[in-house]
């Protein structure tokens, strides 16, 4: 890791030195989704030439194999990789426009082949990338497959999706290579520092010259601003709190954005982000499929695993019709036989509106009070092999928990916003494919408004967004344009406060762990390009040996400054993250020697957190204090 980190570091330094704007013609937004990737682009040169016109954002049509030998262009690249057996596909069947002999099979074809051979399908790499209980550099995907299937790491999978997008772009725009453009990659707001770092590391394999990470809900807000044009200022006012609800294929991501005023201009501030919730559209399709399966079982028809796959597909299509505002009351579900005999072997059943209502609307969006929070406690992330799926499927309960937890998130920024039992959004922005369905979006809105009217507060209004599927990518490329000094920028910075754990010194008592104190090393809201030093506390690093630190994050304690040491905190206020590790090379020192250091936190321009140990009282050859990198993602 340290080798690749160093490479990453030097890239960043190069970036600052050689910032030549001449070749940067486009701002590119990449939505690296759990189930789909989208790439959008904005011509910065054209936008600069016609500053009065509304900026145009386009979505790249991504050539990809749809089945062996057939290449189609689609706006979305399914985030799947198929690890084919060597005798499975011929070279001609997997050729791509830019490579006649590709080593990796990604996109639609991977999803199609994988539905019949799941042991060779790499999916949900993004969820694995932010799963702190595993080594994310280890070749573990497809998870749980036989040893013979050659595996790749979640990081490599991410690199491959980016590489496919890069090739698709360079094929279409040979004069403007992707790596030279202004690239913004979106990540869930709930990604912890290690997952952000891993995303940046994946991107560093492609050596982007200008890379930024952007939180997906923020990208959704940028997309909304872009689609409103200058009108957005009329749709919100000072004091508004915008709740962004992003329910995608695999995850649910929540954020709060407060509208304030600065020297007469409206300003947007991202004030809170939610936990990482692995719950999305895929869960809903599965829920319907199992319902249909149970229905067929009652009729005495037992289903094979491949038939369940077919039902999931059929339910996805049927759901879309039944969740629209129309008068269709049932949609037939037909599961054809696998053999060439179609007649007599086709299973037929139907999915009704009331079943969809019950399974999806009531199952995933139950009407609950704002005091009802997800039932199951979060499972310890370190003790499991599979993905940490949300145990409570109710999006509304997760939302209630988020709003309650962030009750006083706005009190610093907005006058009159008093701490209450939950924070009251005044505007709502939806994003993600799931909320395209009017029945679900309406239900979500009515639940929030019920909470608000129960608390005697004005109902929230819905900010209308354009394309919920492509919005994040479009918002990301618009952000690249905003960064050039055009239009409003959302103030964000770190969405959590970070701490390292220090064991207090006290006499050992059997059966009791020494109490833990938490030293704040990076405060909430710390902005890109800034540094914080906890200079009042010394740590001793042992030369030549890895030293571990316990690492914590909090998205509710927003007033702790770097250097503050907590000896107690409320339950759930601090969440333990994977531990940190620092290794001092033995160069010029005795192995085993202890070097006193301070801890320094830095938010890079890319948007990742970097931790360093600075030697106290010793300098390197150039007279600067020596610095050592602290790893966020420790390989086991």
């Amino acid at each position, binding site marked *: 890791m340290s080798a690749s980190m160093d490479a990453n570091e030097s890239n960043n330094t190069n970036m600052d030195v050689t910032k030549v704007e001449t070749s940067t013609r486009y701002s590119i937004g990449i939505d690296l989704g759990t189930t789909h990737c989208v790439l959008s682009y904005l011509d910065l040169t054209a936008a600069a030439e016609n500053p009065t016109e509304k900026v145009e954002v386009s979505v790249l049509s991504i*050539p990809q194999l*749809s*089945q*062996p*030998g*057939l*290449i*189609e*262009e689609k706006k979305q690249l399914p985030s799947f990789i198929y690890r084919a057996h060597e005798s499975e596909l*011929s*070279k*001609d*069947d*997997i*050729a791509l*426009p830019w490579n006649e002999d590709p080593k990796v099979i990604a996109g639609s074809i991977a999803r199609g082949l994988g539905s*019949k051979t799941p042991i060779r399908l790499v999916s949900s790499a993004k969820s694995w990338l932010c799963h702190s209980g595993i080594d994310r550099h280890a070749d573990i995907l497809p998870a749980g497959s036989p040893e013979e299937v050659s595996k790749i790491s979640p990081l490599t999978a991410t690199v491959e999706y980016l590489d496919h997008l890069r090739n698709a772009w360079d094929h279409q725009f040979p004069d403007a290579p992707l790596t030279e453009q202004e690239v913004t990659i979106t990540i869930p707001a709930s990604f912890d520092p290690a997952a952000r770092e891993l995303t940046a590391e994946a991107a560093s394999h492609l050596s982007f010259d200008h890379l930024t990470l952007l939180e997906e809900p923020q990208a959704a807000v940028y997309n909304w601003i872009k689609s409103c044009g200058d009108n957005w200022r009329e749709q919100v006012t000072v004091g508004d709190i915008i709740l962004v609800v992003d329910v995608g294929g695999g995850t649910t991501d929540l954020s709060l954005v407060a509208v304030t005023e600065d020297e007469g201009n409206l300003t947007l501030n991202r004030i809170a982000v939610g936990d990482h919730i692995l719950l999305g559209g895929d869960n809903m399709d599965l829920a319907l499929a199992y319902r249909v399966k149970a229905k067929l079982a009652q009729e005495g028809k037992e289903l094979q695993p491949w038939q369940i796959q077919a039902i999931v597909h059929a339910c996805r*299509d049927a759901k879309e019709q039944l969740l629209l505002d129309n008068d269709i009351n049932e949609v*037939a579900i*037909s599961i*054809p036989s*696998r053999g*060439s*005999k*179609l*007649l*007599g072997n*086709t*299973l*037929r*059943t139907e999915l009704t509106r009331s079943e969809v209502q019950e399974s999806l609307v009531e199952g995933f969006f139950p009407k609950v009070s704002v005091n009802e929070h997800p039932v199951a406690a979060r499972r310890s992330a370190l003790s499991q092999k599979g993905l940490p799926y949300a145990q409570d499927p109710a999006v509304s309960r997760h939302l209630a928990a988020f709003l309650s937890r962030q009750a006083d998130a706005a009190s610093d920024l907005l006058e009159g916003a008093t701490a209450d039992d939950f924070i009251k959004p005044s505007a709502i922005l939806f994003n993600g494919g799931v909320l395209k369905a009017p029945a679900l979006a309406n239900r979500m809105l009515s639940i929030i408004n019920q909470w608000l009217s129960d608390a005697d507060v004005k109902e929230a209004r819905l900010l209308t967004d354009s394309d919920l599927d492509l919005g994040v990518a479009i918002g990301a490329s618009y952000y690249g344009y905003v960064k050039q000094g055009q239009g409003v920028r959302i103030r964000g910075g770190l969405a959590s406060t970070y701490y390292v754990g220090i064991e207090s010194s006290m006499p050992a008592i059997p059966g009791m762990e020494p109490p833990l104190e938490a030293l704040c090393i990076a405060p909430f809201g710390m902005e890109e390009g800034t540094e914080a030093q906890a200079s009042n506390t010394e740590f001793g690093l042992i030369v030549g040996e890895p030293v571990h630190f316990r690492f914590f994050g909090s998205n509710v304690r927003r007033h702790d400054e770097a250097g503050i040491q907590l000896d107690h905190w409320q339950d759930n206020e601090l969440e333990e993250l994977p531990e940190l590790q620092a290794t001092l090379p033995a160069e010029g020192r005795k192995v085993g020697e202890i070097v006193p250091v301070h801890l320094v936190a830095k938010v890079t321009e890319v948007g990742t957190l970097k931790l360093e140990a600075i030697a106290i009282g010793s300098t390197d050859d150039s007279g600067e204090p020596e610095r050592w990198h602290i790893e966020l993602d420790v390989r086991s």
Partner: protein
Amino acid sequence: MNIDVSSIPTTIDMFHLILVILSLISLSLLVMKRKSAANQTNETTDTIQPVIPQEPIQEKEPPKPAQLKEASPDAALQLLTLLQQDARFIDFIKEDLSSYSDADIGAAARVVHEGSKKTLDTYFSLESVRNEDEETRISLPEGFNASEVRLTGNVVGEAPFNGTLIHKGWKVTDIKLPKIAAGHNTAIVAPAEVEL
């Protein structure tokens, strides 16, 4: 299962099915036409040379042979592949329907209909040639496009022609078929599948 399916939806399915097959046939004709039109321009430039030196012959001019183009088998095979893949088209057509009940046929017809619709919607943009309601009187001005509108029945007199719109017609406004890898064998419209 037979009890589940009432006979009324079944007949509707058959109707749909016939529609699908009809539209598929006309579609493939259209595709071939387009291909041939595209080929024609190429070939005329190639073959125009030998025609020019011909001296004008005073006697009765022999009819010139029409330029015929081979419809590209790859495009046709690809369409078959897509229809088989999404709609089980070949499986369905190759079956002998005589021994099955309408309910069975109806269930299978849904698969064919849904899949064919998906294929059509994905790869072709279709719109009707005439926007008037069928079974209403319309008038065709002089110089109307004879390839878009076919006159039938009592075809006499001069334009404008007044008649009843029987079928509103279909035209493909955009076609976006997948590209085919050079070495891909398009003749295999559905590979045999072996589960291990």
